[in-house]
């Protein structure tokens, strides 16, 4: 589904990501874990075309998306739910969702309503808040809105950056259940999480990033038992 080869990202003189390669297979949940500053967010920003890549190539379902602009990458089926949610604060929940369908031109009202209905079924709380401005939602609701907005573009692969950051434990569980539900809908998920324990529990495979390099890779449950991971990320 997604193949990243020798990706390097630099900000000025600081190299955030150095020559990393990884892949995500269809219907997998793949997790990128690492400490702050490891290069996780920079990797996702580079994949979605927000940040320029210094070198390397990115392939989505066999298509080279390395030099495509951000809006084209969304059209090609790669969606990025950014860290901090970035909902449009003065648009209503429903308007936020409709912006997620930007890539579909000439869509009929009935089709659009079907898409909205699908999101409301997956996220019932958003239906209750449909007329409310995005900026007035709670953190958990904003996260749900950001994910639902991403799903509106019907992506083949959805990348989520710290979806549980700053959320109450009960909401964290809810978000991880949603991620599994999204996988069961046939989507592929690339997940960045500081909550390594939960992240490794739900993912099929994971890559461990440290200072811009991939230092470990393996199945989620194997990495949970890995002494290096346990010491560095699980506090065991």
């Amino acid at each position, binding site marked *: 589904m997604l193949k990243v080869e020798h990706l390097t990202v630099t900000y000025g003189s600081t190299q955030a990501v150095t020559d990393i390669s990884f892949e995500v297979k269809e219907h997998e949940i793949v997790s990128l874990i690492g400490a702050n500053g490891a290069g996780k967010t920079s990797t996702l920003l580079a994949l*979605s075309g927000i940040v320029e890549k210094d070198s390397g190539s990115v392939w989505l379902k066999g298509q080279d998306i390395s030099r495509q602009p*951000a809006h084209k990458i969304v059209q090609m089926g790669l969606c990025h739910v950014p860290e901090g949610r970035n909902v*449009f604060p*003065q*648009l209503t929940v429903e308007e936020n969702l*409709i*912006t*997620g369908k*930007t890539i579909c031109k000439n869509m009929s009202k009935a089709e659009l309503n079907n898409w909205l209905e699908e999101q409301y079924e997956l996220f019932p709380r958003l239906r209750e808040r449909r007329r409310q401005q995005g900026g007035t939602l709670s953190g958990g609701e904003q996260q749900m809105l950001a994910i639902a907005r*991403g799903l509106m573009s019907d992506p083949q692969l959805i990348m989520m950056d710290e979806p549980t950051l700053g959320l109450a434990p009960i909401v964290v569980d809810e978000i991880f259940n949603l991620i599994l539900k999204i996988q069961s809908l046939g989507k592929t998920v690339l997940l960045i999480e500081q909550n390594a324990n939960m992240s490794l529990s739900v993912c099929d495979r994971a890559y461990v990033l440290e200072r811009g390099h991939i230092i470990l890779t393996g199945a989620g449950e194997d990495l949970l038992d890995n002494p290096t991971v346990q010491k560095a990320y699980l506090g065991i």
Partner: protein
Amino acid sequence: MYILEQILNGVCQGSIYALMAIGYAFIYGIVGLVTFSYGEVAMVGAFAAYYAFILFGNNLLIGCIAGIAGGVVAGMLIYKFCYERFLLAPKHIAIICTVAISQLFKSLAQIYFGTEVKPMASLFGGKYIQLGDLRVTYVQILVLVMVIIMASGLSLFTKKTQVGMQLRAVAQDKKAAALVGIHVNRMALLGNCIGCALGGTAGLLLAVYYGNVYATMGQAVGFKAFSAVVLGGLSNVGAAAVGGMLIGLLENIGIMFFSANYRDTIAFVFMVVVLIFMPQGIGTKKGYRQ
């Protein structure tokens, strides 16, 4: 009756400033940059209408279309030369570029249109409606109707259409807009052109209202539009319109007490006084100044 006439003049001039301020705030919201070439956009709109009136025999509709089109073309040029080329550069570079292109427009207008003040066609031959002791000219009615049409058209467009929603999304969060598949640069170009269309319309209305057009006419009105937007808090379109209306009213009421030569001084002193006591502007909550 003199005070009522001055209030009416103030409302008319204020509504033109308000239209410019709406366009200015719209551009700031979408593009994210202050522009110093907006007065010249109005000048281009005024000249486009001036020549359309000459060519098409004072046809009001064609004149209006020409004024709007003049503003849009100027907006496209400004975007291409000042914004698009410097999207990744520090913001001050694009802002300095708008100062440069403003001078360029002014100089080109002086070279090709001449430096003299040109009389604008008299569209209604001085016709007016008498309301008691108050005389309301057709030109004043035209100004108010045009401003209402343009401002409410923009409001409907941004609230009721998908493109309008995308423009609002870009104004609120450019990164998120790109991540949902919105072509942010194209929207910024469109937003700039819409804002400049309002500027072009305002230029046409100023020319019709004052009865003349000249190459340097954009300078003072550009600064007044900027003052109105600063009073409103930069990206708040509604508050910017209120700022524009206040400036127009104050100018006209002010010249009842001072000489008409102090018209511009009154407007700018008012801006300075408001900003001393309300540095966040009248439309922004305290602490949220942009």
